[in-house]
Every structure is written in C-alpha cells, then in structure tokens.
C-alpha cells in the first residue's frame, strides 16, 4: 500500500504541560477573558437571543407537517396510506372514505400525526405520490403541556400554510 505516512509530533509532553497546574490557569484565563469581554459589551455574543431573534429556516428544513390543496381548494391527499406504510415511527393514523369532489375516489376522513412519536425523518413526504404532505411549514418548535394536543389532526394540517414560495421549496427538495 502506498499510503503516505506523516509522523505528527505528540504535544503535551513537556515538563510544564505535565504539571497541569499552569495549563489550568491558562484555560481559566481564556474563559475569564470571554466572560469579561461579554460582560462589558454583549453585542458581539456568539449566542442567538432565541425567542426574540428567530433563526433562518431553509426550505429543505423538515419542520412540522402540513397537507396541501389543489388550486381549486380540494385536498390533494387521496388516503393511499403510503406515508403510514413508510413511517418508521408508526405515528400516522389514517381513516379513508369515499370522495365525491371529482378529484379521485378516495380521501382521508381522519389524518392524525402524533408529533410526540414523529422523528421528523421526512419519509412520509418522500413516499407521497400526490405531493400532499409536506414539512415546509417552518414550524420547528412544537410544544404543549398535554399529550392529546400533540396529535395533529386533518383540519389543522390543512389550515397551516407553507412558509416558502413554490420555487424555493422545489429547489430545496431537489
């Protein structure tokens, strides 16, 4: 094998370094340096002021799910159960029924995603043959103080708009 071998000099073997005490003080100096610098002027902090300053979400970020509609307002989902079949955490529960809006024969009567069980892998979006489920709402923080409200229903998913325009979403997906 003609792999190049580079011998790296091992550091930390000098007497002063082996004493440790000096190194501890040097480390402390760095920490305290940051502390006093930020205490005097916090405009250069490396920390995001989270609730006040929101992070930029890119279109390919997998956020909370939503269900999309056709231009005429009809639901795109045809309740084919592909997302439920593909879901590794088994958090999607669908009930299907007859459909009479001329789009297809089948539509979901119930479409629940348990966000406590969802692992946000995006397999449901990949499996969907209708582009009916997307994770482009930009919602990354889903919190609640009870389990029941963490189950996302059909209505709520249809109500939530996408956070990005179509072009940038398609670019992100591709």
């Amino acid at each position, binding site marked *: 094998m003609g792999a190049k071998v580079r011998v790296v000099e091992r550091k930390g073997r000098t007497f002063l370094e082996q004493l440790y005490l000096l190194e501890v003080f040097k480390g402390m100096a760095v920490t305290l340096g940051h502390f006093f610098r930020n205490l005097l002027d916090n405009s250069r902090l490396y920390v995001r002021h989270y609730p006040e300053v929101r992070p930029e979400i890119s279109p390919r970020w997998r956020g909370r799910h939503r269900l999309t509609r056709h231009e005429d307002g009809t639901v795109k989902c*045809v309740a084919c*159960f592909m997302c439920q*079949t593909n879901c590794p955490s088994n958090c999607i*529960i669908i009930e299907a029924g*007859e459909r009479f809006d001329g789009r*297809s*024969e*089948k539509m979901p009567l119930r479409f629940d995603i348990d966000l406590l069980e969802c692992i946000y892998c995006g397999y449901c979006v990949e499996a969907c*043959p209708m582009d009916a489920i997307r994770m482009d709402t930009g919602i990354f923080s889903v919190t609640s103080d009870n389990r029941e409200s963490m189950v996302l229903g059909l209505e709520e998913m249809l109500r939530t708009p996408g956070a990005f325009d179509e072009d940038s979403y398609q670019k992100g997906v591709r």
Partner: protein
Amino acid sequence: MAEMVKLFVNGQEVEVEAGKNLIDALQVVGIEIPHFCYHPALGADGNCRMCLVGIEDGRPPLVPACKTPAQPGMKVLLEDEKIKKIQRDIMELELINHPVDCPVCDQAGECTLQDYYMSYSQQDSRMNVEQVHKDKRLDFGCGVVHDQERCVLCARCVRFTRQITKTGELGIVNRSDQARVTIFPGRPLANRYALNIVDICPVGAMTSKDFRFRQRVWFLQKDPGICHGCSTGCNIYIDHHREKYGDDVIYRFRARTNLQVNGYFICDAGRLSYKTENENRQDRTLVDGVEVPLERGIEAALDKLNRARKPLMLVSPDSTLEQLWAIKRIATLYGAVLSGYSDAYVLAGDGDDYLISDDKAANRAGLQLLDIDSGKESFAAALADADLLVNFNNDLFFSPGNEDLQEALEATDQVSVCSHDRPAFSRATVILPCASYSEYGGSIVNRNNVLQRFARAVCRDADPCDIIEITRLLGGAISDNARAWPGLRQSVPALSRIWPERIPVEGVTLNSSEETHVGA
C-alpha cells in the same frame, strides 16, 4: 394417487400430475405461468393470452397453457426470449388504458397486474394519446362496485355468474377498447354468492362496498379459519389487523380453497358474518347486573352450581368437539342434565343446493357424535324440572320459535357463558364472557361429516376465556384442546383413530359406518 407424467420445463425434467392443464400442473411443483382469465373453478377461457408458452418441436409451437394438458415428454419453454417478449407485450396492451390509480385502489398489494408488471414487464408506457375513459364506481348490486377502467376483460366475473351461480347478470358489451363489463339495464347482481366476484377479479375492477377503503391489504394479517355461519364449514381467511392504539379488528373474510368442503367460494352471508365477531360482544362479567372481575363471576357461578339440586346445562351446536367434551365432563361432575337443544339454529328453507345449508350451526354433527340429546321435549321437561340453567353460548332465540319456552326460562335461575350480548343470555343472573370462534381453536364436524381443525386467529384486548377454560375454572379437569382428545378418542368410536394434530388442512371425512354405530 393420480397418474404422473414427466415433462421438461426450460430443459429441466419435472414430474407432474397427468390430465391437468399446464398452469395447474406446474403450479404444484412451484413453476408459475402468468395468467389473468384462467381460474380453476371457471375453467380455461383463453382470452387473455398471458399464459402463452412455447412448446419445443411442437405443432403449434406456441400454446395457451390453460388449454394445454400436461403430456409426457412435452418440452415447455418459459424462459425463452420469445415468450418473455409475448408476456411483456401482453402486459403493455393491458396497461394502455389502465388508469394506474394504485394509490386509491383497494386491490393494490394483492393485484395480479401489479405483480406481473414487476415480474414480467417493468416498462414505461409508450402511449402518447389520451387514454380511453370509462365509468368508475358503478354499483352492480349485492355490494359489488365495478370500475370499468381498471378491468382487463378476463371475463372471470361473467363466467362466474354464468357457470357457478347460473344467474348470468354480467356480460361484456362493445368491442376493442370500448369493451366493458356491465349489468343489463335495471338488472343488478342478485345472487347469494356475488361477492366472490371481488375475490376472483385479478385486478381492482371489482371491489367490495363493505371493505372499500377501510384498510390497505398489506396491513392485514391473514389467518386461516372456518366460517361458523352454517353447517357447511366453509374455509375462510380471517383478515384482521390491530390499528395503533386500537383493538384487533376483523376487516373481512375471504374464501379459502378446500375442494373437499367449499371449493373456491363462500356465500355472501358467511363473508359478511365477520361483523358479528366485531360487534355486540359480551366482554364484561356480570353478577346480578353489576360488573365484577371474572374470578367473582366464577365464584358466583360455582356457588349456584353447588347449591343447585337439579342443574341443566345447555350447549351450543357451534361449540367445538373439545368444548362439548369439556362441558359434558362438568355436567357429569355436577350431576347436571345436558342438552344440545338448538332448533332455533335451523332456518328451514334458507339453504340451497350449493353451499348454504338450512342449519346455521357449525358443529351439529359433533353434537350428535358426542351423543348429546338435542330434542325439544326433553329440554322443555328438564327446564321445567331444573332450578339452574347453565347456558354455554346457545342462542335460544337465534330465530323465532322458542317463545313457548320463555315462561319456563324466566322461572329458572340462569348462568350464561356467552360471547355476544343477546336477549337469550341477558336474563341470566351470572354472565361470564367467553371467546367466539375467531378467538379460539378446535375441531368441528360439518354437515358432510368432514372433521376440520382450526386455530385461533384474533386476539382482542378484552381477550375473553375459551369455554374450555371456563369449564376448568368451574371445576372441570380439561384445561385445553389437547387434553380433551384422549377422552374423545375413548368414548366416541368415530374419533377413536383421530389425532387432532394429524388432521390435514382440508379436513378428514369421518367413517360413516362408525357414525351409524354411534347413532345406534
């Protein structure tokens, strides 16, 4: 044993049964010949051309396998490039006007077109003109919904109504790509076997209104079972599924092939009888109308049995041989009169000459084998005399006719061991829930003396005990099916040589001479 012949498939020698056509003969040895229109019950039609196979040095060199009997020395070509091209082309033709709406099609997952596309075609459509559109969601009656666009015109459904039910409601009208399966105007399907059409349709053109969109088939667990709708004992598949956070629910029954019993089909009533397994179940133990744990219910029943001077035990003609034996044993233990009176299960005139029988009890022959008296006079006399009636899931009011017993029943203290919440059981002071036939296993004998064995399929949350377990809790010695058999073999001559684990899947016909001996 059928005569065997040797022939060659792709140069390899195989031994198959003589007289069968190539599709059936080669299927036994694990060689699949694709086909749409051929069905063993409906015979060869030869219209789909999917089963064309090459015969080396044959005249003609290309034959439909469904119409060609296996002959010795035949050299069948399946892996030939020419044959593969034919299969690819037939698939392309079938798919020209197919809507490919698999996401909304109930057949997806058990669809011949899907399977054959993956095995024999795998090509993109070359069509650039608009597809021919036909009617969808046509209600053909009897719960059959037809989609003309998905149809491959194999005419299995048409032949079924002509050959099997002899009602001929369906036909194919028009020609070429305008051809479609339809009913005559104003004459929907009207026969008691119509839903078999959904089973035999190789694609999703025929769907069941009852099952439509309720579940995707790949989620269903398909366990073999035996229909308890009547004394024919048709073989079925119990398709059930436990939804997340839900209970184990049966979604449908389908026909399971058993040439000795039901052939390839089952009746619609039996097919839809899965609903009674899901609904109206008795899952609570009640003592004087108050829900209690099972142990308390058993205590109450034991207390009544011990105090009763003349107990009467009533068994159900649906119970398995093992259950009947277990009940018979505890009847002896408590000195109880044992009756199998169940005239209510017989609906005279309801049966036909095909699969449906008048007797709606699954194991009446078993009742007779065990020599359990089922006369009305003796039951009425015993009931008038008895101070306690223990009813093991026998629905006395299954059909009208037992109103005259009402008074005597009301006068008698009752313990009901029942699977369903029905008027016949609700009067009891102690109600013990028990499993229904999809939730236990056992052996039953049908009207033609065929002994069949079935296993447990469904496991619901409530998980009520089997009747055998209840008899054990009531002091019986038999704790499971296997322990009932030594006693059964010893006391029932017809069963003396039967080992339940050796009963073949298609059942075993009990010796009729021994049967007469039992009756004598």
